[in-house]
């Protein structure tokens, strides 16, 4: 039983891109046989894609044997699920009673004005999605605005521009994760200044950092998650666990490792330039996830910078 969309009507279908459904079987396998697993499945799908793609829901229907009406009914019932793609950053403004009496509606208006969208919409550049909620349970802090899971309290109109800018530049946690210590970085080669982001390869649903590595005569590509704090990585060939690799820039071939040694395993650390002014060090030994960020005087403090 499957539903083929002859013509997605209304606002649901996303027609421009084909959604990569690779992650779905894995998610379904994880919840196979569980009772009441539909909501966890949908939650996981939403974590991976940021929304519930139509194709993904159809796959859930055909794989789990649930009826399409049930799956669609649940997906549309909960506000937490979205059937339309959301932007990279989710801006949530509270219009609950407590926030309302403290001027939340003016805040909402200002957000709409600055983003040029109204409630529930996503900006054309896919950066921001604006949503309203009726009470976040943080009434004493009102008016409350939540951007990418980060709560801003006692928001005033004058702060909004800065808040949005911080979100755009990634100073607030990425929407791809709800852990407060993770945020995305964009890196360049410290030697040739060439960009190291691989737009065609995503890890943690962000473009990955790509590097050349070699060890014991074999060489290949290494991709690291650009989410600082995430251990996610992909290697093209099998590096024996525990052995260190030579890291070099894929453009200028300059060796990037060796200047520092890892504080926990003494293997050489590789260093990359982070856009915005910082240096990212990471351990070149497979299995060691030691990473650090050297903050040279910068405009962008990753933690708490925009959150006071």
């Amino acid at each position: 039983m499957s539903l083929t969309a002859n013509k997605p009507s209304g606002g649901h279908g996303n027609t421009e891109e084909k959604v990569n459904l690779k992650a779905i079987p894995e998610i379904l396998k994880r919840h196979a046989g569980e009772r009441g697993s539909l909501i966890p499945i949908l939650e996981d799908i939403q974590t991976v894609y940021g929304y519930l793609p139509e194709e993904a829901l159809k796959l859930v229907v055909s794989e789990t044997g649930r009826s399409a009406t049930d799956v669609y009914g649940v997906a549309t019932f909960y506000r937490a699920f979205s059937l339309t793609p959301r932007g990279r950053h989710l801006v949530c403004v509270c219009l609950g009673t407590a926030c309302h009496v403290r001027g939340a509606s003016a805040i909402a208006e200002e957000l709409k004005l600055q983003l040029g969208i109204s409630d529930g919409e996503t900006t054309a550049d896919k950066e921001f999605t604006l949503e309203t909620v009726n009470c976040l349970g943080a009434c004493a802090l009102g008016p409350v605005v939540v951007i990418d899971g980060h709560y801003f309290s006692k928001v005033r109109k004058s702060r909004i521009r800065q808040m949005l800018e911080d979100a755009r530049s990634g100073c607030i946690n990425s929407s791809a994760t709800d852990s407060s210590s993770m945020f995305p970085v964009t890196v360049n080669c410290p030697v040739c200044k060439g960009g190291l982001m691989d737009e065609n390869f995503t890890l943690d649903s962000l473009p990955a950092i790509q590097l050349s590595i070699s060890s014991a005569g074999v060489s290949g590509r290494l991709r690291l998650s650009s989410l600082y704090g995430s251990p996610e990585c992909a290697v093209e060939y099998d590096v024996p666990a525990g052995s260190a690799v030579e890291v070099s820039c894929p453009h200028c071939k300059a060796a990037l490792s060796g200047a520092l040694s890892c504080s926990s395993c003494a293997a050489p650390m590789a260093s990359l330039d982070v856009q915005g002014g910082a240096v990212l060090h990471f351990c070149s030994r497979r299995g060691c996830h030691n990473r650090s960020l050297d903050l040279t005087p910068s405009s962008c403090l990753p933690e708490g910078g925009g959150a006071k």
Partner: protein
Amino acid sequence: MITLKINGVTAAVEEGSTILDAAGFLGFPIPTLCHMEGLTPYGACRICIVEIGEGVQAKLVSSCTYPVAEGMKVRTASKRVLRARKMILELLLASCPQSKVIQDLASAHGVRQQRFKQEHEDCILCGLCVRMCKEQMMAGAIGFRSRGEKRSIGTPFDIKSETCRLCGGCIYVCPACQLRCTYTEPDKAICGGCANLPPPCAEKEAFDDMMCYMNPCVACEIEKDAKTANMME
């Protein structure tokens, strides 16, 4: 067997049956709207309310979903029940005045006025069609979507369903669309347009303006007119 008292009459009924079953067994009529034999009770319309318990404990429950219990005292037509039922009908009339079923129920219960803002909904969300499709037709082509104000019935993703066999069961049980097409002149009665159509739900891609997937159905125009009028206000 369970013994209970309905309107003062003692009866013994099987365990697991509902108050509605028991009352029917004794011959006390209880009006229903969203209840249909062969479909699981859903308790959406509340027309079938009865009063159970005594004194301050007395409360109104929907008899089609309420299972009988030992020693239960039921009143199917107390003052409170009748008043509440009238109010429910008035509210239903306010949202879906063109339904013949609701009109008949209202007139049978002596509802002579409608004091709420008049709307022209084409669905009262009784769920009969959903249950019919799933339980009797084994299709499950339509279901509830969204919630609250936005709750509606339709196919997933609003596209033509492949599981739908065009049996028309949904329309057959729908209390809102039966004999509905009187357009703006009630005295003209039904237009009969729909009756001459091939099976409903036919080659139609978008259901947007249509009620129960029928085309042409002038009744839908009422809704549209009302909406434009509202917007202009």
